[in-house]
C-alpha cells in the first residue's frame, strides 16, 4: 500500500511537470546539470590556483545547502500553491484522503516523494557530472562517493531544517521567533569564537574533508532529527473553516487609485496577505536564502576587496528579488479573469505594479545590509545594481514565461534563455563595477532592454490561448 501510494505520487509529479513544460524539455533538466558540472569540473585545476580546495568545498556545500533551503521553501510552500492552482481535487495527496490512510502517513509520503524527486533532478546529476570528470582531473576515485554522501546530506539538511522551521511557523509564530533568536545567538557566539572556521563544524562538510564514520552518523542524525520532529508536529489542515473576513478589497482598491488597475493590484495584495504566504514567504524564500548567500560570499573577502563582495551581492539580491514575481502569479490562474474584460497585458502590467510595491522589502534589506557591513560609501552603486537587476530579471521572466514564471525552474530551454539573457549583462556590469564601483550605476541602463522585453512579452502572451490549468 505504502509503496503504491509513493509510486503513484512520483508518477503524478512527473506528469504534472512534464505536461506543463513538455516532457522532453523536462527530462533534459538533469542532463543539463550533468553537462554543466562535467564541463566546469575541468576548470577546477584553474580555480585551485586562486581558491583553496577547502573554500571551493565550502562554496559547493553552501550551494547545496541553499538548494535544500530553496526546495524546502519553494517546494513545501510551493506545493501549497500548486494545490490551489490545480485545485485540491487534482492532487493525490488530497484525493488520498478518501483512502483509509492517516493524514500524517499521506503527508510523509508526500514529503519523501519531494525529496527523492529533487535528489534525482538536482543532486544525482551534479555528482555524476563530477564523478565522470574526476579521472581526468586527478581526483582520487573514492572522492566522488564522498562528495555524493556529503552533498546529499547537505541538501537534506537544508530541506529538513526548513521543513522544521516551516512546521514551527505553521504551529506558532512566537516559537519560530524564539528559535530564530536562539540560532542567531548561537551562530553569533560561534562565529566570534571560531571565525570562518565555523563552517567546518558542519558535519556533512567534515564528512567531505575527513570521510570518517562518526561524521557520517552525525550528519545523518542532523538530518533525521528536524525531519522526525516536523512529521511529529505536523497537524493536518482542514479546509472549510467558516471564518469571516471584512471587506479589505474595496478600501485597498481606493488607496491604490494611483495604480493603473487598482482592483487587480488590490486583489494581488489581499491574496498574498490572506494566503498567509506573506511573512512566511519573505522569510523562507527571500531572507534565508540571501542570508546564506551572504555568509558564503563572505568567504570571498579573503580574495577580493569588501566593496566587490557587496556589489556582487547586490546583483544576486536583485536576481533573487525578481523571484517575487512568482509570489504574485502563483495564486490565481487566468481562469479567474477569463470571464472579465481583462487582457493578458493588462494583467501583466498590474503584476509589475504589485511587484514594485513588494520591492520595498528587498530595498530596505539592501540598505540595512550595506550599512551594517560598512559599505555605506557604496550605497548608491549597490542600490542601483540591485534595482536594475531586479527589474531587468523581472522583464526577462515576463518575456520568457508570461504569467507562469514557475516554468523557469523546469523548462530547460527557457532556463537557458534566462541564464544567457541575465548572465551576459551580469558579467559585463560586474566587470565594470570592479573597475570602479561607481561604474556599477550604469546597470540602470538595463531599463531600456527591460522595457523592450516587457513590450515583446505583451505581444507574445496576448497571442496565446489562456492557460487552461
Amino acid at each position, binding site marked *: 500500500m505504502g509503496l503504491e501510494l509513493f509510486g503513484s505520487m512520483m508518477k503524478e509529479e512527473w506528469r504534472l511537470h512534464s505536461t506543463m513544460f513538455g516532457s522532453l524539455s523536462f527530462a533534459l533538466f538533469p542532463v543539463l546539470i550533468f553537462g554543466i558540472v562535467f564541463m566546469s569540473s575541468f576548470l577546477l585545476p584553474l580555480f585551485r590556483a586562486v581558491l583553496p580546495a577547502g573554500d571551493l568545498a565550502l562554496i559547493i556545500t553552501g550551494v547545496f545547502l541553499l538548494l535544500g533551503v530553496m526546495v524546502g521553501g519553494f517546494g513545501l510552500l510551493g506545493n501549497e500553491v500548486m494545490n*490551489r492552482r490545480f*485545485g485540491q481535487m487534482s492532487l493525490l495527496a488530497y484525493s488520498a484522503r478518501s483512502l483509509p490512510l492517516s493524514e500524517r502517513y499521506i503527508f510523509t509520503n508526500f514529503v519523501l516523494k519531494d525529496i527523492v524527486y529533487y535528489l534525482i533532478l538536482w543532486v544525482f546529476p551534479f555528482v555524476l557530472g563530477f564523478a565522470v570528470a574526476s579521472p581526468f582531473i586527478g581526483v582520487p576515485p573514492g572522492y566522488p562517493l564522498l562528495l555524493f554522501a556529503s552533498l546529499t546530506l547537505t541538501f537534506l539538511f537544508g530541506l529538513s531544517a526548513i521543513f522544521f522551521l516551516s512546521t514551527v511557523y505553521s504551529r506558532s509564530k512566537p516559537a519560530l521567533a524564539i528559535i530564530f533568536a536562539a540560532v542567531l545567538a548561537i551562530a553569533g557566539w560561534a562565529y566570534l569564537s571560531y571565525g570562518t572556521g565555523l563552517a567546518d563544524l558542519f558535519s556533512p562538510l567534515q564528512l567531505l574533508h575527513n570521510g570518517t564514520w562518526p561524521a557520517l552518523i552525525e550528519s545523518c542524525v542532523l538530518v533525521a532529527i528536524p525531519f522526525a520532529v516536523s512529521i511529529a508536529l505536523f497537524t493536518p489542515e482542514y*479546509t*472549510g*473553516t*467558516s*471564518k*469571516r*473576513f*471584512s*471587506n*479589505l*478589497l*474595496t478600501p485597498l*482598491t481606493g488607496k491604490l487609485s494611483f495604480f493603473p488597475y*487598482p*482592483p*487587480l493590484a*488590490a*486583489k494581488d495584495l*489581499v*491574496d498574498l496577505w*490572506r*494566503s498567509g504566504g506573506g511573512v512566511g514567504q519573505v522569510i523562507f524564500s527571500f531572507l534565508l536564502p540571501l542570508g546564506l548567500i551572504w555568509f558564503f560570499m563572505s568567504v570571498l573577502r579573503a580574495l577580493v576587496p569588501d566593496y566587490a563582495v557587496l556589489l556582487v551581492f547586490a546583483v544576486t539580491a536583485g536576481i533573487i528579488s525578481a523571484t517575487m514575481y512568482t509570489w504574485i502569479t502563483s*495564486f*490565481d*490562474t487566468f*481562469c*479567474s479573469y*477569463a*470571464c*472579465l*474584460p*481583462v*487582457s493578458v497585458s493588462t494583467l501583466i502590467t498590474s503584476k509589475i505594479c504589485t511587484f514594485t510595491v513588494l520591492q520595498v522589502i528587498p530595498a530596505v534589506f539592501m540598505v540595512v545590509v550595506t550599512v551594517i557591513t560598512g559599505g555605506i560609501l557604496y550605497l548608491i552603486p549597490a542600490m542601483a545594481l540591485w534595482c536594475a537587476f531586479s527589474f531587468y530579471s523581472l522583464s526577462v521572466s515576463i518575456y520568457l514565461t508570461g504569467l507562469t514564471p514557475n516554468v523557469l525552474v523546469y523548462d530547460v530551454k527557457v532556463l537557458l534563455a534566462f541564464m544567457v539573457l541575465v548572465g551576459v549583462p551580469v558579467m559585463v556590469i560586474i566587470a565594470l563595477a570592479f573597475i570602479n564601483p561607481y561604474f556599477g550605476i550604469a546597470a540602470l541602463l538595463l531599463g531600456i532592454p527591460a522595457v523592450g522585453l516587457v513590450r515583446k512579452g505583451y505581444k507574445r502572451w496576448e497571442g496565446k*490561448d*489562456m492557460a*487552461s490549468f
Partner: protein
Amino acid sequence: MVMVIESQGLTKQFGDTMAVDNITLSVPQGSLFGLLGPNGSGKTTMIKMLTGQIRPTNGQMTVLGLNVLNDPIGVRKSVGIIPEQETPPSFLTAMEYLAFVGAVRKIPDIDEKAAWWFRFLEFEDKRDVLCKDLSRGTRQKLMFAQAFLHKPVLALIDEPLINFDPIMQRKVKKYLAEYVKSGGTIFISTHILEIAEEICTGFAILHKGKLLYSGAISELSGKKQHLSEFFFSQVQDD
C-alpha cells in the same frame, strides 16, 4: 431578426482532437438558446471561443456585432459569462469578489447590486466567507451573480444550474426566462434536457464537435416530439 452571435465554419483542434468541427450557427436577439450535447461534445470549447478565451483553429465569429478575434476584450466588456468551472479567486470573500468584478467592470452602486444578489440567491450568510471555503453550490451562485451583475445584453453560461438544488433551479430558471422577456439574450450550455425543453426558445445539438441540428423549440412541438426523444434520435443515429 438581429443576430447576437454568428459563427462561420468555427473549428478548434486540440492536438488530434476535433473539439469543435466546422460549426456555423446564429443566435437571434431575445432568445434563450440552448447548446445541447453529450459530455465532450464541444460545448465548453464553443463558449470559450465565442468569448475570446481561446482562439479558433479556423473560422470566423461575431458577437454583438464585434469580431471576437479582433476585439475579445470588447466582447467580454459587454457580455456576461459563467465559466464551466466555478472558480472564484480563493482568497477573496464572496462580497469582495463581487466588489472586484464591479470595480473591473466599472459598475456603479455595486454594494446595493451585490446585496440584491445575495438576497435573491439566498446566500447572505456567506458574504464574508473566503471563496475557497464555499460549497460548490454557493460558488456557483456567486458565479451566477457575477455574470449578471452588469445586466449584460447577452450572457453565455456554461452548465449554470448543475450544482443547484431543485428549489434554486426553479428560481434561476424563472430568472432566465424573465431576463429574456425583458430583452436580454442567453446562450446556455447544458445536458439537462428537461431544463432546456422547459425554458429554451431555440437550441442546437452538438455531438463529437459537429453540429447535428439547430432550430427553434417550437419546431419540435409541431412534430409532437419531446426534446429528449429528439436528442437521442439525433445523437444515436451516428
